[in-house]
């Protein structure tokens, strides 16, 4: 690097001037809350006795790490993320592959697929709560017409977890479809023709050509979906409030309750900070994957 010329200096100053308002706004609404929460996580700060009088060091973190309920919520979240992302990926890839071979009516399919994605999660939760209502819901009524006993979708602990998983899949699967389809349709056609002449069957072409060439797109799609799934909050709040018991107590909802039901803001902030670190780590991974994908 050589020393900046006066002209470059002026350009740089002008650049900062242009970005300053945006940066200030970001600092106010994003950076400040994060720093505030970060600070709070090191104090015994409750909403009953708010104040920064008792410095706790890593006390809140240690408490959270030893808190069985918190660990349970973390475990439920891991299960939820694995279930949701893997099933969505399987369905998403299948649908994307089919759509990629479709010539006619692609736009219509797209539109239908995008509908759930465009609905607000709160609305999705309310909608499915009504659809799955044990006595008034249409699903149980339909089941009854073919002689199946009514299912207590959100009332039974095991069932509730899978119901939430299913609703989230319904809501977000199109996201996978859209990203994977974009990846598929940008694959070059020539290697497929070369592979056909080389003697590869459709399955072999999928395995040896499509999957390897899609690897960066798949990695990015999975990571983005995982990051979003970890943060799932709205549909839990609307549909189960973490219940029955703690069967659907996802970590975001758990932290919310620790802060605004138990009013222990210090500990909630420590938990949030830990969640943030996990997500930041995944984002870094995502960033690296995208960079290496570009280099290839």
């Amino acid at each position, binding site marked *: 690097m050589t020393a900046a010329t006066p002209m470059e200096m002026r350009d740089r100053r002008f650049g900062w001037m242009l970005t300053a308002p945006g940066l200030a706004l970001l600092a106010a609404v994003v950076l400040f809350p994060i720093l505030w929460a970060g600070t709070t996580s090191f104090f015994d700060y409750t909403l009953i006795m708010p104040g920064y009088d008792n410095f706790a060091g890593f006390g809140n973190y240690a408490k959270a790490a030893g808190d069985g309920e918190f660990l349970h919520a973390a475990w439920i979240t891991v299960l939820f993320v694995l279930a949701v992302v893997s099933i969505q990926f399987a369905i998403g890839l299948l649908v994307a592959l089919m759509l990629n071979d479709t010539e006619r009516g692609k736009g219509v399919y797209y539109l239908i697929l995008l509908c759930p994605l465009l609905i607000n999660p709160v609305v999705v939760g309310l909608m499915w709560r009504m659809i799955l209502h044990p006595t008034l819901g249409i699903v149980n009524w339909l089941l009854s017409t073919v002689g199946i006993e009514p299912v207590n979708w959100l009332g039974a602990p095991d069932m509730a977890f899978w119901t939430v998983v299913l609703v989230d899949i319904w809501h977000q699967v199109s996201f996978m479809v859209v990203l994977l389809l974009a990846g598929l349709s940008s694959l*070059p056609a*020539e*290697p497929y*023709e*070369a*592979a*056909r*002449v*080389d*003697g*590869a*069957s459709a399955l*072999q072409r999928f395995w*040896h*050509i499509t999957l*390897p*060439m899609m*690897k960066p797109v798949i990695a990015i799609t999975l990571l983005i979906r995982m990051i979003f799934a970890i943060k799932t909050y709205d549909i839990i709040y609307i549909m189960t409030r973490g219940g029955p018991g703690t069967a659907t107590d996802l970590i975001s909802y758990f932290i919310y309750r620790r802060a605004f039901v138990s009013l222990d803001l210090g500990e909630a902030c420590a938990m949030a900070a830990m969640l943030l670190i996990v997500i930041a780590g995944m984002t870094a991974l995502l960033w690296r994957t995208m960079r290496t994908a570009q280099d*290839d």
Partner: protein
Amino acid sequence: MASIELNSVSRIYGSGASAVHAVKGIDLKIEDGEFMIFLGPSGCGKSTTLRMIAGLEPVSGGDLLIDGARVNDVDPAERDLAIVFQNYALYPHMTVRANMAFGLKLRGLPRSEIDTRIADVARVLSVEPLLNRRPAQLSGGQRQRVALGRALVREPRAFLLDEPLSNLDAKLRSVMRTELVKLHRKLGTTMVHVTHDQVEAMTMGTRICIMRGGEIVQVGRPQEVYRNPADTFVAGFLATPPMNLFPGRLEARGDSLVLVAEGAEIPVPAATAPGWGGHAGREVIIGLRPEHLAEAPEGPAPAALQLSVETVEALGPETILNLRLGRNGPEIAARLPADGDWEAGQPVTLHADTARLHLFDPATTRSIPRGAAHAL
């Protein structure tokens, strides 16, 4: 080793009003071991024909036979042909070695056999140092070699090459032309090579199949096609600069035929062209190759032409003159040795070798044969 036969093979893209008749029922027999060139301008259906042979494009009508067996509905995998694409179509995520090994692995060849074949081909094509690289790390010429190598290791019944040299620079292209010809001589495998470059066509093939608008115009050995172009299209397509074509009238004057064109009268001894006698009094298109004009009379029946120089292209080994025939006649190119000194505007006398003149029917654009006495 394979012969390839096309019996009124056609290919129609789309349907209804928007249908594109890309190949219009062509007949062609490519013999076993031949180096056949498909030559023609862009969009004439060369690639489509090649892709139908490969099985990448369905045949809309007619029969496609390989070694006498109808293969219209046979999967490309089972045709045992190899194709080299214009853009190489390497597998981007595989190393050069894996690119070459892919087809062999799918066919279940043993590991040792695969390794030997790749080593042999890599040596022939000098791609040994590249075997562990990815296509993205190769230059255009190297990719081209790898694509060729991937076809070679397969040891297929025939090679199909779709303009494999068109993305190379001029020097590399001429090197690869020679390499391909050598390879063909060594392997003796049938090759079908698509190109729009007439130099490739003239220098590489055992036969040229010239196509236009989805039809075959002429098939023959390069010299044959060069000497006896079937119509004005072939005459104007082959060689640079191509044959001069200009309108004129064929007249009979006593024992002699005379071609009357704007700016010149060219006598042609009737005995040298018995086939033309019957066309006396008709309008014709006169075809005269630039290389058949010379400063000194040549051949059994030379005819002097008065011309004026318009532009001079000194190419080094030879000079191309663009000339005006007579005062306002057509523009004509002449290919002369480099040792002359010409200037624009200068009048010159050149001698046409009338024994090598061609006539074409203006209505059909087909060649009017000279007849038997052409043995000059």
